[in-house]
């Protein structure tokens, strides 16, 4: 129970900090929209091609935006060395990890209500209400799958000056299974799934999200303290 209370306390703190620094989430949202715009310009006016690539571009926009969001979440901790203050408290580092992971997942989920309509408009895709709900579920799984290793790596690189370069370099290769699972399942959702493959891709996505959440939770205490 204590660990749950501490996790919730970290989530509350992060939500409050994010609310106070709203400009950060706005810039991440804007970055995602601009990414989608650029991808659509790169493909050109071919509506069939746009529709086929929509799922992949939507997930790539999430991935690229996530690196900004994740590195920001630990930049706040490094300012005035607040992270050391947390480590000096009798707080279980696992609670610290899952608290930050949950809040990072939540922030990435906030991108969905903005990026999804932009994608539908730019890429000429139609989606019914049930499709929206399914897409939000897939988005949540993708956000969770990216947040778990992203939070770990953001913590590891937060003290380094080259964090902005290192974080994507470390994160992108690791999240390839999440990327594949989410691109395939979102594309199948947006373009049609005549062979009912979406379930197996979703299962792959969910499996990797669970693996990352378990494994990174075990590694985080070492990552956060060894750096000293």
């Amino acid at each position, binding site marked *: 129970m204590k660990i749950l209370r501490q996790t919730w*306390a970290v989530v509350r703190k992060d939500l409050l*900090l994010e609310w*106070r620094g709203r400009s950060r989430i706005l810039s991440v949202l804007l970055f995602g929209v601009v990414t989608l715009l650029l991808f659509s310009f790169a493909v050109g006016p071919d509506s069939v091609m746009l529709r086929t690539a929509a799922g992949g571009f939507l997930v790539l926009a999430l991935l690229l935006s996530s690196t900004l969001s994740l590195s920001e979440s630990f930049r*706040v901790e490094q300012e005035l060395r607040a992270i*050391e*203050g947390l*480590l*000096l*408290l009798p707080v279980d580092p696992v609670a610290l990890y899952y608290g930050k992971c949950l809040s990072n997942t939540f922030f990435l989920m906030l991108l969905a209500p903005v990026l999804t309509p932009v994608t539908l408009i730019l890429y000429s895709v139609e989606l019914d209400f049930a499709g929206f709900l399914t897409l939000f579920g897939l988005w949540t799984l993708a956000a969770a799958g990216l947040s778990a290793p992203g939070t770990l790596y953001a913590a590891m690189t937060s003290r380094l000056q080259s964090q902005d370069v290192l974080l994507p370099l470390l994160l992108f290769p690791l999240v390839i299974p999440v990327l594949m699972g989410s691109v395939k399942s979102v594309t199948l959702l947006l373009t049609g799934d005549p062979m009912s493959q979406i379930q197996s891709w979703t299962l792959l996505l969910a499996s990797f999200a669970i693996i990352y959440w378990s494994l990174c939770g075990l590694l985080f205490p070492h990552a956060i303290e060894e750096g*000293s």
Partner: protein
Amino acid sequence: MTSAEQTTIAVRSVGLGKRFGRQWALAHCDLQVDAGQAVLLAGANGSGKTTLLRLIAGLYKPTQGQLTIFGNDPNRERMTCRQTLTLVGHDHYLYSQLTALETVQVWARLSGCEHSDDQLLDLLEEVDLRHWRNKRVGGFSAGMKKRLTLLRTRLEEPRLILLDEPFSALDTDGQKLIEDWVQRFKSAGKTLVVASHNLPRAARLCERAVFLKEGQIIWQGKATDMIQQLRLTS
């Protein structure tokens, strides 16, 4: 580790050392601080005072030697050690976007303290920050940040308090506040390790002193004796 050691010896280090790259910040440090004692760490900038405090606090892992806090190894029994100590250091460990009240609320929740908001406001009153409770700490002066950080020693109720340059950035009232608090901690039987350049003031609060030079302990004894020797040599 004996149960007597757990209760009577707050800090014990044997051959303790910390190296950053090729540079030894602290080397061959043998130190014992008895429970309830107040010890002053003195020495020039870069002598290893802050490194020693951060090793004791568990923020650094020793490169060599052994360290125990009330008989516990800070690397193996991390949580037990963290429940017993607090470090108030150079850095303030604050979030500039949070208000003073929100900051202590976050600390209280994470420490598992059952303080009500009224109790937290009373604590803010003690450090003259009640009127500033709804102001963001990013706009606070260094002295106000230090006073706010000092509240951690009251929230967590630790047995061992580590103070790194407690008088820096504080005005006369702020320094008096620290003195009063240290006296109160001593009366409550808490152990204190204070690193300071303000030797006359710090020596009044501590019975023992340890002098460090270039990462090594070169003198240990009564704090008053150290002040006397420094006067003679200067």
